[in-house]
């Protein structure tokens, strides 16, 4: 039944594509696109829920004459969980797209957008269900290519084309590693079915490295993250929402799948590698987010940071498995999966809200924004709520994953007791602390500078917040609040996915972990409710106190200065300058300072720009070296036929000399 519903959704998408292909009425195609995705997301939602409620995986097998291939579809708990996320976000993003492109729909046909959206949506759902290597790679490529075309939606812009190019390079680079990965795993097999995969003992670590690079590129682990801050600002906001909310999670899904094929002992180095990689990802991600000024670039770096948190959860899980500290391991994996879901919901709602900002102001530079709350109050409220959540603060959902990760670290250090355990705990904890406060700083900055205060540049905001703009945001924000308080309700699904996927977990360990989850998530929900009711209580008390008092309005107190202007506000750059200053030796923000006039100040300007650290210290030199070598070799390319014939002759002679004795 689960598979049936899923296939149903694909058929729906197919029919929708046909309509879009042949219909010429622009308004109707736009409506058809929205409705099709919405309906098919309902199908997927139903299918995955069916599997989760039924409690047993659903599968379908059909032989396929492609080498190593078979049409093997399987929805297990892990797939169902990710499909659920896809259905919710995909459907709501489609709804939002309807409003977002509403004005565009009369100017040009949006059928291209919708067909690629169908492709991406279907591709991701296929990635989560394909259970055969070749099939999976095909789905993976389909997902990558359709998302590439979606990034290129505004292809007339040169920046967008450059970003699309970088994205294509990165995603194909990643896929190349996956091809090798599946090739090694399936080297003795006739079909690359996932349930047949076994680790060759010798090659276990190379396989894990390949998976880390291949899937890590999609997930945005540093140093493979460079495409994220390029592609997200370039893509239309609904596309960024879907990509950041769900597509990058396919990388995490893939990593967990690879882990699930493990048998026997896991080398200690895997967990350490994963934790090292992710803590660097998390910390550098948040530091970059603090220094950037482009609204969507900041959100992209925040995604990288959150992938770091998820990766740390996986790392703790792997490390715990190899140290046979089962409870810590399970808590780590559970934390990772919780954070996958929560980050998906939070980040997609933030990207959608940023789409509204973009639409209303036509700028992504946060230094030019300000005071938007008064113009778009609903979007402002929900952006604030999601910022609050993604900063990892209770009672919103973003906190649950971080809390469980902390618990995993605690249990690892208390039960492990060796020096390495403590050092691991230390690294994760310090990263978690830096990420935690860093993201609070980052999102107070983003929310405060964009929505609060006064506009930094006079802008006419022409946007009426219609229901298609706000309903998806309301739903996502509401889900985050509910899932933050009621995380205990989601725990069985997440924990079920973890236990059914992670290899080598004793029954008793699982039971103990369930007890810990109950002991912690329930009081967490109680505290969340307490917090909400206290807030409401105090607001009532205040209303009562102020009922018969004078409530006045006056300009902001600026210490006696009578003519404050909006340009005197603290800027986004100055807000985080002290923090970045501590890390200036690492990040090297480029500063430029212009000062005219000597004794008497005249026009002066000061700007800081933060360039991506990894881009600067790794990729730029790498590309430079490759270019230099290529330029050397370039000398061979003469362009004259005679010279090429000379090359051929020389090669032949060389070959003859080498193989002189061997040819019979």
């Amino acid at each position, binding site marked *: 039944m689960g598979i049936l519903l899923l296939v149903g959704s694909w058929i729906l998408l197919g029919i929708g594509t046909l309509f879009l292909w042949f219909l010429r009425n622009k308004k109707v195609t736009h409506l058809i696109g929205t409705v099709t995705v919405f309906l098919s997301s309902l199908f997927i939602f139903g299918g995955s829920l069916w599997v989760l409620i039924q409690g047993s995986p659903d599968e379908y097998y059909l032989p396929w004459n492609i080498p190593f291939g078979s049409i093997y579809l399987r929805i297990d708990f892990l797939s169902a969980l990710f499909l659920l996320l896809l259905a919710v976000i995909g459907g709501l993003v489609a709804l939002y797209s309807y409003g977002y492109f509403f004005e565009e729909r009369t100017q040009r046909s949006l059928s291209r957008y919708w067909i690629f959206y169908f492709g991406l949506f279907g591709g991701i759902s296929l990635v989560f269900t394909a259970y055969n290597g070749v099939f999976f790679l095909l789905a993976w490529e389909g997902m990558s290519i359709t998302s590439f075309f979606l990034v290129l939606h505004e292809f007339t812009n040169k920046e967008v084309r450059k970003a699309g190019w970088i994205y294509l390079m990165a995603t194909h680079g990643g896929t190349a590693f996956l091809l090798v990965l599946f090739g090694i795993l399936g080297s003795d097999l006739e079909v690359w079915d996932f349930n047949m995969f076994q680790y060759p003992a010798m090659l276990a670590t190379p396989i894990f490295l390949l998976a880390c690079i291949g899937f890590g590129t999609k997930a945005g682990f540093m140093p493979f993250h460079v495409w994220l801050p390029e592609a997200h600002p370039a893509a239309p906001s609904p596309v960024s929402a879907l990509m950041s909310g769900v597509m990058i999670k396919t990388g995490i899904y893939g990593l967990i799948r690879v882990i699930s094929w493990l048998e026997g002992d896991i080398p200690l180095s895997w967990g350490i590698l994963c934790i090292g990689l992710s803590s660097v990802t998390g910390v550098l991600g948040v530091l970059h987010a603090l220094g950037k000024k482009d609204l969507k670039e900041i959100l992209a770096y925040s995604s990288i940071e959150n992938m770091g948190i998820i990766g740390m959860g996986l790392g703790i899980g792997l490390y715990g498995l190899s140290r046979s500290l089962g409870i810590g391991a399970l808590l780590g994996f559970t934390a990772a999966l919780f954070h996958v879901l929560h980050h998906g919901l939070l980040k997609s709602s933030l990207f959608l809200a940023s789409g509204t900002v973009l639409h209303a102001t036509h700028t992504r530079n946060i230094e030019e924004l300000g*005071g938007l709350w008064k113009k778009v109050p609903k979007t402002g409220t929900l952006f604030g709520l999601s910022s609050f959540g993604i900063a990892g603060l209770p009672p919103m959902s973003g906190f649950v994953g971080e809390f469980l990760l902390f618990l995993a670290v*605690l249990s690892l250090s208390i039960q492990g007791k060796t020096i390495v355990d403590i050092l691991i705990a*230390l690294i994760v904890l310090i990263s978690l602390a830096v990420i935690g406060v860093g993201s609070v700083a980052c999102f107070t900055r983003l929310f405060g500078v964009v929505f609060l205060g006064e506009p930094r540049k006079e802008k006419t905001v022409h946007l009426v917040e219609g229901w298609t703009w706000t309903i998806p945001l309301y739903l996502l924000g509401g889900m985050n609040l509910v899932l933050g308080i009621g995380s205990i309700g989601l725990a069985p699904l997440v924990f079920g996915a973890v236990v059914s996927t992670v290899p080598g977990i004793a029954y008793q360990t699982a039971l103990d972990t369930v007890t810990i989850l109950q002991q912690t998530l329930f009081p967490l929900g109680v505290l969340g409710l307490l917090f909400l009711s206290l*807030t409401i209580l105090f607001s009532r008390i205040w209303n009562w106190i102020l009922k018969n008092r004078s409530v006045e309005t006056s300009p902001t107190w600026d210490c006696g200065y009578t003519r404050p202007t909006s340009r005197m506000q603290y800027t986004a750059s100055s807000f985080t300058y002290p923090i970045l200053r501590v890390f200036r030796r690492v990040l090297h923000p480029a500063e430029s300072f212009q000062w005219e006039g000597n004794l008497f100040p005249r026009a002066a300007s000061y700007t800081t720009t933060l360039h991506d650290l990894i881009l600067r210290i790794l990729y730029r030199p790498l590309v430079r070296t490759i270019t230099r070598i290529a330029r050397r070799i370039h000398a061979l390319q003469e362009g004259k036929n005679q010279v090429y014939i000379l090359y051929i002759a020389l090669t032949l002679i060389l070959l003859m000399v080498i193989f002189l004795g061997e040819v019979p």
Partner: protein
Amino acid sequence: MSLLLALILSPLFLGIIVRTKAFFAGRKGQPLLQFYYDLVKLLRKGVVYSSSTTLVFRLSPWLALATVGTALFILPLPGYSGWISFPGDFFVLFSLLGVLRFSLVCSALDTGSSFEGMGASREMFISFLAEPALLLSFLVLAFGLEGYTLKEILSHPFSIGAGRTVALYFISVSLLIVLLAENSRIPFDDPNTHLELTMIHEVMVLDHSGPDLAGILYSSALKLWILGSLWVGISIPVRWGIFYIDVLVFLGSMGLLAVIIGIIESILARVRMIRVSHALSLATVLAGLALLWTIG
């Protein structure tokens, strides 16, 4: 009990600090109960809102009180269990302080004032450096005492083992630094000055008035009480096992802490913003040393 004590006595705590400082300066000082009078006076006033502000600004006192109120449900009397106690509860406690920070910083940015923006920026900067030290200290305690909850950690810190007590001293100093930084005391911030450029916490609430200001001031007094009682629980581990005596010991220790803070504020000058990072790195390094001591 811990909840009631905090609600009733936290303004007195501030009073003791101020009286200690007055004693060192050779002044008579304000009455011990001055903060109660201030709060009552503020509660009876009207409010002025800036025309730049939005709902976020009005939310800030409610959120501040609600977060501190929720945190008080977790906070135990040292040696006893809090009302809500569960594994990892101290992480939730610290995150709630993060909520307080979030709402205050947002309300400061909401006014559009450059001074409040500066205060918000500095508040984030200081907590950015203080948070790792705080979490690290509690990791050491949790690891050394094998406790998952605040109750287990604060009950008998000296059961950490004879060879490891030095770690406790390190953590005690580290936590004291964090306590001063997080609550905007000297040497990180000066709660008395009224020159806006030098202030951090006070400048963030420049535009709050009347009951709103009362709410914010009360919640920061409670925040000081919360972190203070964590410090007392670790640094002055005298437990009799008889509830009322323990309460008295706890209150005495809190009074002692107030005097210590008063003395520190009297003999130290406020450090430059750039040096703040050095002082807070010291806290992190001390916690790290404590960790080494606990392992080794």
